[in-house]
């Protein structure tokens, strides 16, 4: 696997299109159309596009997986480079699983509805719902990240919002804990929707009369270890009438889904995902994820997993 090539592909794509993989901007905000969310406002929902991108990233990883280890792998990728990266990558991501695309859009809609049900007033950014640039940061492409982050920060500031509501662990972390280091004077308040739901839990009402079921919780590393979001999801799931089970490694000591090395070593990523999936399955109960990367990774190795927002919306809306 030619890591340099992959890194430069990702960086160039973000630079040219704003996204690590080529997607139509419409695909990023079309999930919100049926909801008629107001534009802007004091508080805005900022998805950072990660849920929307996850199926496309997954498709790219499947492609890399098929190239890995084959000697032709490096060659095919290099060819892709000379033939124009964007077009070729476009073909790869065009194979994204439509079911998965639908699923992540439903997750976002559920999050939005849950916030409304909790009495939170907020708007959406539509085409200004930019990608956060988190992959650039994770890969150590600091200069490209700093440039991108500046643009994102300017856009968010221009919206006039003072509170940014995030929906996934990576975007939450990068916006709340990394942006202040890389963007001069970045001072927007960043909160995750699980934190907000938990604060407003009294405004939510669990549906009565429906039987609960057992769920096993898979904490994302960045919620649990970097952003201190451990109790909120448990509290919300229990409030929704579900029985929460802990896997052997959970909370602060949760175990990675393998996602972060998916582009560098797909085979290693797969094995880590399998290790984690076995562990989760061993507990018994429906597996709950809270991160789009965890979601596609555990699914790629055959896991039956569902996002927390779907569980909550079924029981609380």
């Amino acid at each position, binding site marked *: 696997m030619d*890591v340099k090539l992959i890194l430069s592909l990702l960086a160039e794509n973000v630079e040219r299109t704003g996204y690590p993989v080529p997607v139509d901007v419409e695909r990023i905000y079309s999930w919100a159309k049926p909801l008629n969310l107001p534009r802007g406002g004091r508080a805005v929902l900022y998805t950072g596009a990660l849920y929307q991108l996850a199926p496309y990233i997954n498709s790219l990883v499947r492609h890399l997986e098929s190239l890995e280890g084959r000697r032709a792998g490096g060659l095919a990728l290099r060819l892709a480079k000379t033939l124009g990266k964007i077009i070729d990558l476009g073909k790869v991501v065009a194979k994204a699983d439509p079911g998965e695309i639908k699923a992540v859009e439903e997750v976002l809609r559920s999050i939005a509805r849950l916030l409304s049900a909790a009495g939170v007033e907020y708007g959406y950014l539509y085409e200004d719902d930019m990608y956060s640039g988190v992959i650039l940061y994770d890969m150590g492409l600091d200069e490209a990240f700093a440039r991108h982050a500046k643009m994102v920060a300017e856009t968010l500031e221009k919206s006039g919002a003072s509170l940014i509501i995030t929906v996934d662990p990576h975007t939450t972390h990068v916006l709340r804990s990394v942006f202040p280091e890389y963007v001069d004077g970045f001072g927007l308040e960043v909160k995750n929707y699980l934190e907000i739901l938990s604060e407003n839990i009294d405004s939510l009402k669990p549906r009565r009369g429906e039987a609960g079921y057992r769920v096993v919780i898979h904490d994302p590393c960045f919620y649990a270890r*970097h952003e201190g979001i451990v109790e909120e999801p448990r509290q919300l799931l229990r409030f929704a009438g579900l029985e929460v089970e802990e896997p052997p490694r959970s909370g602060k000591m949760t175990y990675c889904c393998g996602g972060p*090395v998916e582009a560098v*070593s797909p085979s290693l990523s797969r*094995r880590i995902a399998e*290790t984690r999936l076995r562990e989760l399955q061993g507990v018994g109960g429906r597996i709950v994820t809270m991160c789009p990367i965890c979601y596609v990774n555990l699914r790629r190795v055959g896991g039956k997993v569902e996002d927390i927002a779907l569980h909550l919306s079924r029981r609380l809306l």
Partner: protein
Amino acid sequence: MPSVALEEVLRDVRRALEDPALQEGLRRAYTGAERRVPEILAEHPEILELARRVEEAKRRVLEDLDRYIEMAVESLKGVGAEPHFAGTAEEAREIVAGIVGSGKVVVMSKSMVAAEIGLREHLESLGNEVWETDLGELLIQLQGSKPMHTIAPAIHLTREEAARLVSEKLGVKLDGEKIEEIVAVVRRYLRDKFVRADVGISGANALAADTGAFVLVENEGNIRLVTGLPPLHIAVVGVDKIVPTLTDAFHVAMVQAAYASLYPPTYLNVIAGPSSTADIEKKRVYGAHGPPKLHVVLVDNGRKKAAKKPLLAEQLRCIRCGRCQLECPVWRLTANHWGGPVYGGPMGVGWTAVTLGEESGAELAHLCLGCARCDEVCPVRIPLSRIIRWLKKLYAESHGL
């Protein structure tokens, strides 16, 4: 040019994933190993307190490393040991080779810094008969491979594999594959080497600048023999092992043992100078029962330079407990196949950057998940995942990305 290349690292990792013996060995060793440390810490909460003190003591030394090296040298002289300072791995090898010479029988106790400077191979190439005496390390020597964990170098070998190595390479007959029998056979075999050895070579867990005393913690008892039986003892010690006082050195040993899930440690050795007696007419004579001669080779090999670097300096606090390795999802599948030619796992990436250069560390960084389980468990709170992300940045910079 870095001495590690990402392409080779990726190949090694793939090979490790496809090696069923390695995977089975890791699986067997792994089960339970992870739970023991939290149990020990729950039973002995004072260890957490000591870990904070060790962290603080190490910070103090690293802020003023040159002065502490000087103090250590003076204190070593004060207790009758002969100190040496080696700037590079090569210098360290030469100093030890100069003391040992050739045609000698040498027994070694497990030392990462000895592996780092390639000591065993060098002494063998000069015509010495060299034996690792730690069972795991001996198996590694027989296999001709590299240690797979900081504390448990042969963690990847199953008993079947170990039995095969011992019977084939040592030419001793084993009746079965019982672990007890392997241990007994090795014990008998090495006993003779200990008695005949001209030189014993050890590392150190910590060296006290105030007294020139150093401590070595162990379970097998081989260190007592290596450092006590031959007439000459050479300790090879990285300068990062210097702590202000002998009390600090004890703390390091206790914390390391606990975090390596070997608590209480079976043996704790303290060595302050060569063996001596003044029992007759109060006249001090060296070499009573222990070695009359003690050399201590202090090894820099990149440590002093790293101590001045913002993030990398923090790696130097490492007490080599290996906890970060056991908790790492990548290490769990690859053991030390990832992390560098000598060290491995999360701490290995940092140590490779210290000892082989930052560019080499950078070639390893992209296999890190950044999941930060390691940060969570390190007793001296080394920000391992942040060090590795910084190395990813160096990789991007040095490859024009």
